[in-house]
């Protein structure tokens, strides 16, 4: 049995808007194994950040369960939630707006430890913050510097130190490298992977960048308009993308490669994401899908296992067994 640290069951998060219910996260079932990384990938507005925020309890879920270490945390009281925050942390996208500009680096790293009463004495807290700075690669001399004096990479290191300071086992990383230059991005990705190896952390890694998600994840879930449309091990997903949306996403990546004809044979998917307010039943990708027919919109679709540990929500993709049967 795999050791599951986090599981969501039919998790939903709706927002009330003037035009109706916005289905930001709509029935997501995920499982994350301890010590592994689950990548959540999708375009802007697909609900990936809302999913992350709902899991760490920054939003109340509308329906569904979140099981953390086997217990349902979706209905916790305020006090119990606070205890949870030492186990679950989040790293935010924008290291420019997620840090209080009036606090020094050391104060920023001390804050979560003080709020959560992690240590008994001040000496212990200061020692811990010095150690954290060392772990995330911030020089000692920066302890009294303010965020505006630092570049994006260093600021994101502060964000990582703050998340680590309370000793979590599970971290939701919400686009942690999107605001960074590519050479700095690589430094931070390496740091996150080293920390995972050393501390046995579990990550849920949210990003729109497919090459980053492939690099860091063991398993990947592709989201489209609040729903997971495909889920598989990282290598499997890129080797055999099955859902038409996943295929279109992968085809649209401009890889730094000059011998692939420069996009000349690419047929980008038409149209754009439609409104997630009161969505029509059935497959939400149907309006843009080149293979769509009436079968896509008359039924609610669920993920089904079509290859080993490879799940797709599309009525036209048959399981391997079904395929074999038809061949016989």
């Amino acid at each position, binding site marked *: 049995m795999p050791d599951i640290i986090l599981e969501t069951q039919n998790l939903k998060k709706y927002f009330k808007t003037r035009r109706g219910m916005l289905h930001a996260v709509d029935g997501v079932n995920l499982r994350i194994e301890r010590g592994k990384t689950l990548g959540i990938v999708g375009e802007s507005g697909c609900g990936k950040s809302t999913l992350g925020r709902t899991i760490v309890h920054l939003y109340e879920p509308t329906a569904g369960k979140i099981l953390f270490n086997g217990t349902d945390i979706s209905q916790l009281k305020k006090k119990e939630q606070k205890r949870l925050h030492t186990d679950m942390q989040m790293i935010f996208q924008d290291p420019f707006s997620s840090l209080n500009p009036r606090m020094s680096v050391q104060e920023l790293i001390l804050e979560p430890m003080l709020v959560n009463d992690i240590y008994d004495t001040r000496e212990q807290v200061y020692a811990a913050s010095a150690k954290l700075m060392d772990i995330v690669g911030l020089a000692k001399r920066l302890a009294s510097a303010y965020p505006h004096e630092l570049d994006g990479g260093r600021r994101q290191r502060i964000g990582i130190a703050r998340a680590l300071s309370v000793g979590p086992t599970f971290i939701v990383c919400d686009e942690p490298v999107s605001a960074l230059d*590519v050479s700095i991005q690589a430094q931070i*990705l390496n740091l996150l992977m080293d920390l995972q190896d050393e501390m046995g952390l579990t990550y849920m890694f949210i990003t729109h960048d497919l090459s980053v998600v492939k690099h860091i994840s063991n398993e990947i879930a592709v989201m489209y308009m609040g729903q997971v449309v495909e889920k598989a091990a990282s290598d499997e997903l890129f080797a055999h993308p099955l859902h038409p949306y996943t295929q279109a996403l992968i085809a*649209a990546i401009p890889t730094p490669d*000059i011998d692939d004809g420069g996009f000349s044979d690419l047929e980008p*998917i038409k149209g754009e994401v439609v409104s997630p307010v009161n969505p029509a039943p059935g497959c939400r990708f149907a309006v843009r899908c080149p293979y769509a027919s009436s079968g896509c919109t008359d039924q609610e679709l669920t993920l089904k296992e079509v290859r080993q540990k490879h799940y797709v929500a599309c009525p036209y993709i048959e399981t391997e067994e079904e395929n074999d049967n038809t061949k016989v």
Partner: protein
Amino acid sequence: MENLLEVKNLQVHYETDKETVYAVNGVSFTIQNGETLGLVGETGAGKTTISLAILQLLSERTARIPKGEIYFKGKNLLDLGEKEMQLIRGEEISMIFQDPMTALNPIMTIGKQIAEALRLHNHQGLSLSEIEEKVDEVLKMVGIPPERKTEYPHQFSGGMKQRVVIAIALACEPQLLIADEPTTALDVTIQAQVLLMMKRLRQQLGTSMILITHDLGVVSKVCDNVAVIYAGEIVEYGTLRDVFSGKVHHPYTVGLFGSIPSLTAKTRRLQPIEGLMPDPTKEVQGCRFADRCPHVREICRRESPSIFAEGSHQVKCHLFREEEKHA
């Protein structure tokens, strides 16, 4: 072929009471008719400053151009007055800005914004109805139904807004288009749509283009030639093939490629460039990349490297100069 644009040893400094920022430090490149040049580099490398210098849109208060020439169709743009520049800007050279959300006027319909460009450069003496026809034509070209020209920017999605911005830039059929990170703010599927459209329009209209980006992937799909910029200098310059698969490379280019996670190869660790870009307010004696370079030698800190050229491929690094001597 004739050079449409030639930038020669351009330097741009920003001067304030407190300090001088050395933003562009001796950049030279040429663009021929129909060519697309990619300017690649990270934040603060000076990419945008170069394009603003070409269009003479630099802040008059702080920006200085101590050295350099910018020839457009044989004329040095730096010698022209504001009146003459206005005839070139938007008409012969136009620009697409990075963020379509802020580049458009929120209280003007998109049709009016496109017509504005046509009206300001109306040498052919087009009538109002002819201008309207042209607006429809330009909108169709970028894939927006002309019926939508009476709508306001907020009624369009990000990808559609960027199409409007491109439509404005192309309305006067410029010979040179400067696109500053035109797809950075867009999702990957929308980016692919916009890049393909720009490629098609370029071929159709024969426009030359400078594409400014930090994304080597985008460069590989769109550009003919590439200039890699680091700290206000071109460190490597050549055809797409030279820079992507040539024999020798600048250590910074190698670092840029090593930083991108691959979709095909399995790499456990990325090979980032250690350290940060040098402080642009300090004048540097030797090579500006020396502090981050894995191959740094004593000469790198003392002397600014000269250009090592092999055919169309140029690399500004001491490393290859030495090898040449040994050989």
